[in-house]
């Protein structure tokens, strides 16, 4: 299938997944993922050349509803459940201007 997963792969994947794994967690995760991928090698031998990928179990296409106005969620209620909100909007820490 592919070469064995490395700690460098895991560091990169953790960054993509927005998880801050410390070195011990990186080591542990690398070993666990490598173990799983070994089990998953059972499908390597299958001839899948002509097989169409199955993206959904029940084929429905172009699912539309009638274009009628219905009530949405209550904005104040939604914002009340957020960690921080201001002036009817979600509030977050600075996005620009800091090195990350």
């Amino acid at each position: 299938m592919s070469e064995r997963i490395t700690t460098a792969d895991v560091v990169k994947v953790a960054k993509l997944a927005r998880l801050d794994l410390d070195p011990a967690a990186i080591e542990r995760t690398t070993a666990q993922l490598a173990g799983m991928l070994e089990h998953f090698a059972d499908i390597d031998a299958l001839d899948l050349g002509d097989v169409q990928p199955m993206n959904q179990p029940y084929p429905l296409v172009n699912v539309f509803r009638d274009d009628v106005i219905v009530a949405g969620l209550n904005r104040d209620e939604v914002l009340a459940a957020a960690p921080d909100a201001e002036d009817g909007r979600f509030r977050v820490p600075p996005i620009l201007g800091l090195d990350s």
Partner: protein
Amino acid sequence: MSAPTSASSAVQIAAGVRSGQLKAADVLEEHLARIDNREGEIHAFNLVLADQARAAAAAVDAAVAAGNDPGPLAGVPVALKDNMCTHGIATTCSSKILDGWKPPYDATVVTRLIAAGAVTVGKTNLDEFAMGSSTENSAFGATRNPRDTSRVPGGSSGGSAAAVAAGFSSVSLGSDTGGSIRQPAALCGVVGVKPTYGYVSRYGLVAFASSLDQIGPFTNTVEDAALLLDVIGGHDPMDSTSIPAPQPSLLGAIQQGVEGLRVGRITDLPEGADPDVVERLEAAFDALRAAGATIVDVQVPAFSYGLTAYYLIAPAEASSNLARYDGVRYGMRVNAPDTNSMYGVTRTAGFGDEVKRRIMLGTYALSAGYYDAYYGKALKVRRMIADDFDRAYQRADVLLTPTSPTVAFPFGAKGDNPFAMYLCDVYTIPTNLAGHPGMSVPFGTGAEGLPVGVQVLSGTLGEPQMFRTAAALERAMGAAK
């Protein structure tokens, strides 16, 4: 009619309440008393809603007194897996990252249950974000199996299975992505159903793996499961994957026997089930043959590749779905000087180990350079499995397999080997990949007197024949008692 007891089914409760012979309030108090007695030991619930339930039961009784029909689930106490949104009521997914979150809307299943007169008694514990097979992965502590409290109830819907097994609620709802209803149903000795993908709306079910997730019932009887599905099933415009076709009444279907029904035995089923489980499966084939069914041999060669396809597809979808927990719109936030680092510290503190592991696996399977080798390949294997099942269903109306390879196991038995836990779902996973229905029916006991479930499978929208088969197994068990 005698007073209700723990053995009373939802069908009996609803009939009694609708006719005025039973009070929803009395039914509820019996269940709340059992919760008071044993919940400290079992921990089926993340949240018990005693006050709201009393108000709902009183409203049902008032409706009956006023001459109105509260609906087909009148006064039936129901528990909800805590990954189903309840308006204004905490919904945690047993994760710290959603602790304290109160959804601004009800899931469609919740709306339908309430409209049918059901009384919600609480939100049940689960493996965090439904990832696990023992309910040991909950951020709020494990649930214990009411049949033997030294053992797990199965998972991920362990709390919902335990709630019904302990008589805390008459029925409950769970969600099943790879076996999360059927496996705990087997381990706790109750009925559990995963319907055809799209049979029940997923609107308001917190997403784990969207192409696999389905909601379904836990009940004490097959008839109760049919009643529940008749209420919660059916098209919902709020879920674009919901099947826009009428569904036949399953309560009607179970009145038919299995005379002439073709029951398939999968001759190339993966090995590994314990002898006591295999013995019960053989007894189930015998019982169906005696009831007039024909047993036929079928092959599903790709069945054994289900585990691999599932553990690439489900984590891939999960890694995408769980990207929404970013500390911005809901749930917890750990503060940091900038938004990008806030994402990382929040998610690292909020998710448990198994959830992180699956996010990592899924992100890897989807990442540049590995997509074709892992995720893309898994989608092709998924097609092979579905095609193999479809060929088998040309020869058989239903298939019978074990639900779980073992009876309920002790806490910690799977250690820290994730793959050992994944093997719990070897017989349930292929059905989710194919999108087919499956259900577990209690069929006697195995080692240490613990419950064994038999799994009945059918093809897309094969619920009627699946329920007929399950009802025949239940009758056979009743006759043997």
